[in-house]
């Protein structure tokens, strides 16, 4: 059986950054396995700009952002295999992969980095009633067809869900000559970034209807119309609010789901909130030597944070294979998200293994204005940062200092909660 120090599953933004970081930490034998025909992952179809403001201090398009990392991978002579599907990862880190050229083969991996990304929630999972004609796409599938293959799904478009891909596609379809009639969003707020609402909808006069959903789909062979309706507080359509839109295309941008079939089969413990692995301060899963980063771990809002997280995963995997990682002990601090904070990544900390500064990322469950992100060490509040606005569509973070954690010996639990101004 061939063996590598680190095998990285996925050659998108997370996999690329993890590979580069592991190489810079001195790991020799690194292999990236990518199922598509090129490196770069979903960035290749994200031709809009807005990537890289944090990482490169400039606005890049998706392919440009990817190319910066691809160039580094090539410069570092990191091995990668394209058209290669990972079929299985075992709990003792044997990776089974398959491709046309190499057939089915197994690799013994010193460490594995999960970087498989996420996929879109399909129509079926949304229980939208009506017919099942052609003309209904997840926004990302339409994005691939338009941007990569060069085909227009249709000319009259309705979009359900105001996730970023949906917003971006509203502008994309408009620029390519389609009429985007409406974007309907089930929630009372948009899941997308502000800038996308401004630049993709407002600029083109596309209405965004919050608290609305699709209640009927017409067309036996091809989509001919959809009906949307307002929903009440329980997300139930309100009779009498129906509006019918003739259209030939319905795009769905209703959430992303980390793609963890391989992780689950390997025995990786999953978070029911993120649908991604539960990880510790090293971004390591419950299986020693198996790390996770990027959208397979939790869905990110900005690729810059994916790269940053993956860089940490790569460095930690490097430590692991070089035997430089402190033994995991049972002196583990739990991080608990509550009162508006939905989850945290990581969810446990072993102080011995953490860097001097540790970024803990989380999302909130609703829109909070002029509220505080509070961090408690056991019962003591140690951080109380005011935020003018927090929304579920955007990731939040707090930075923990190793020094502070060390000072507090016997610390068992760190709690992150959202508090109003007058609390405490």
């Amino acid at each position, binding site marked *: 059986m061939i063996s590598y120090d680190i095998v990285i599953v996925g050659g998108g933004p997370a996999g690329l950054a993890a590979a580069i970081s592991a190489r810079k930490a001195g790991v020799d034998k690194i292999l990236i396995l990518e199922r598509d025909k090129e490196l770069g992952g979903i960035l290749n179809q994200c031709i809009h700009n807005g990537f890289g403001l944090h990482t490169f201090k400039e606005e890049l398009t998706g392919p440009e952002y990817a190319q910066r990392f691809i160039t580094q991978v090539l410069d570092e002579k990191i091995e990668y295999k394209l058209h290669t599907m990972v079929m299985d990862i075992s709990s003792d880190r044997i990776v089974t992969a398959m491709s046309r050229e190499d057939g089915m083969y197994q690799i013994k991996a010193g460490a594995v980095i999960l970087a498989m990304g996420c996929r879109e929630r399909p129509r079926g999972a949304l229980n939208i*009633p009506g017919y099942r004609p052609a003309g209904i796409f997840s926004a990302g599938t339409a994005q691939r067809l338009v941007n990569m293959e060069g085909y227009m799904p249709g000319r009259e478009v309705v979009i359900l869900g105001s996730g970023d891909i949906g917003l971006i596609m509203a502008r994309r379809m408009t620029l390519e000559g389609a009429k985007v009639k409406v974007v309907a969003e089930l929630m009372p707020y948009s899941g997308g970034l502000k800038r996308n609402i401004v630049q993709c909808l407002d600029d083109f006069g596309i209405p965004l209807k919050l608290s609305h959903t699709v209640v009927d789909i017409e067309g036996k062979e091809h989509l001919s119309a959809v009906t949307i309706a307002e929903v009440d507080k329980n997300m139930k359509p309100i009779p009498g609010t129906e509006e019918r839109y003739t259209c030939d295309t319905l795009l769905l941008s209703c959430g992303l789901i980390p793609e963890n079939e391989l992780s689950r089969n390997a025995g990786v413990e999953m978070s029911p909130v993120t649908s991604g692995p539960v990880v510790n301060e090293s971004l390591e899963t419950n299986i020693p030597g198996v790390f996770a980063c990027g959208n397979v771990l939790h869905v990110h809002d900005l690729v810059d944070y994916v790269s940053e997280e993956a860089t940490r995963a790569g460095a930690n995997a490097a430590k692991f294979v070089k035997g430089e990682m402190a033994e995991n002990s049972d002196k583990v601090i739990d991080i608990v998200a509550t009162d508006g904070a939905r989850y945290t990544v990581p969810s446990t900390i072993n102080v011995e293994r953490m860097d001097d500064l540790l970024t803990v990322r989380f999302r909130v469950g609703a829109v909070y204005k002029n509220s505080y992100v509070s961090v408690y060490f056991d019962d003591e509040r140690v951080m109380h940062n005011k935020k003018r606005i927090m929304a579920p569509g955007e990731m939040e973070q707090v930075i923990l200092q190793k020094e502070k954690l060390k000072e507090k010996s016997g610390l068992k639990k760190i709690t992150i909660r959202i508090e109003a101004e007058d609390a405490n």
Partner: protein
Amino acid sequence: MYDVIVIGAGVTGCAVARELSRYKANVCVLEKCEDVCEGTSKANSAIVHAGFDAAQGSLMAKLNVRGNEMMDKLCEDLDIPFKRNGSMVVCIHKEALEGLKDLYDRGVANGVKDMKILSREEALEMEPNLSDNVQGALYAPTGGIICPFKLTIAMAENANMNGVEFRFNTKVEDITKNDDGTWKIRTNNGEYLTRYIVNAAGVYADKIHNMVSEKKAHIIERRGDYCLLDKEAGTHVTHTIFPQPTKLGKGVLVSPTVHGNLIVGPTAVDIEDKEGTNTTAEGIADLQAKANDHVKNLPLRKVITSFAGLRAHLEQHDFVIEEVADAPCFIDCLGIESPGLSSSPAIGEMVGNMLKEKMNLENKDNWISKRKDILDPSKLSIEERNELIKKNPAYGNIICRCESISEGEILDAIHRPLGARSLDGVKRRTRAGMGRCQAGFCSPRTMEILNRELGLSYEEITKSGGRSNIVLERTKNQKGEQA
């Protein structure tokens, strides 16, 4: 001039076609859609019923039990999956326990073997996720699960291998009798002459029947909504779980599918629309509520798709399979609703025997009874799989990541007899696109393969024939740009 034309390439038409392919006869199947299995056959519970439900002495009871018996051999010959997982009818009201006994007695009378009445404890031991209210259950070990697509496609392929012709996108518009007693069928695709007609048109069978007979038939389209759950939920129950039957049918069942998903459904709503396969919010809510009556903790969050099918219901609720009195040489298969899928092999046999006798058909010497399904590489060892990829590298290229379907399997589906020509055609033959992402990832890739292999332009590729095109046109609209 054909000897027999079968109208409709659903499971009934394909079963009849396969039976007729045994004989020295020119047989042709006319189908209005672009593929087999496009109507009722594609949207049902995917169950092989044991046969205790149908009324004693009915044709339905006889053919259900016979079809069930035939299924093992048939599926072995056709190389398709079939599992006798056993079915349970669950009683949740003490006062209804008597009903289980009635059902048991009816089953015995119908010839269903090995049934048993289970106590509450026995039932829960076999199926821990039954409702806490379970009082007892009827257990029928001969109940099974099957893939309706694979069954229909396999019978059609096998018929085609044995010389039966199939004409797709061919809709029957009128049928008239010629002076010599033969039939003239006018379609959107030209005229067909034939000695005999078998009407296997599903929900349209009344329309076809009424073209030739003064004794009018009326089929009621009984719509049923279904939810299909992710494979993660596929072992929530291991038997097919029914509530006790009512006038409207066998009720909302919960069952594993032969591919490892969980299916919940159907509702039963009578409509008057032969194309009314739209799901409704009420229907989905109704079936979810009803399923929860007899199965607990159903993980309904794991729904990957919902769909609706139409049952071709006749007032008398029995199959009508006979030569039409005022239209000699025209054989009806009317009212083939549930348990139509289970009965299909027996319906094929019955119609085959009728025609054999009437037409004095002789057996072919070289009839091929067996057919190989599309190779499933996941059943191979790593070594075997490597051999396969070496011989045909397409088996190393995964197209559908959810179901792990390779390009090799898709190529096989396209190039075998009556091969796939659309995304749904590929999906029903290989399961590519049937997984949890519902083709979001693989449809552009499958389109690329259809484009390359069939010479269809992207604009010509459809979801399932007709006007179900996936894309409209090229971006940029520059004249002369090659696809």
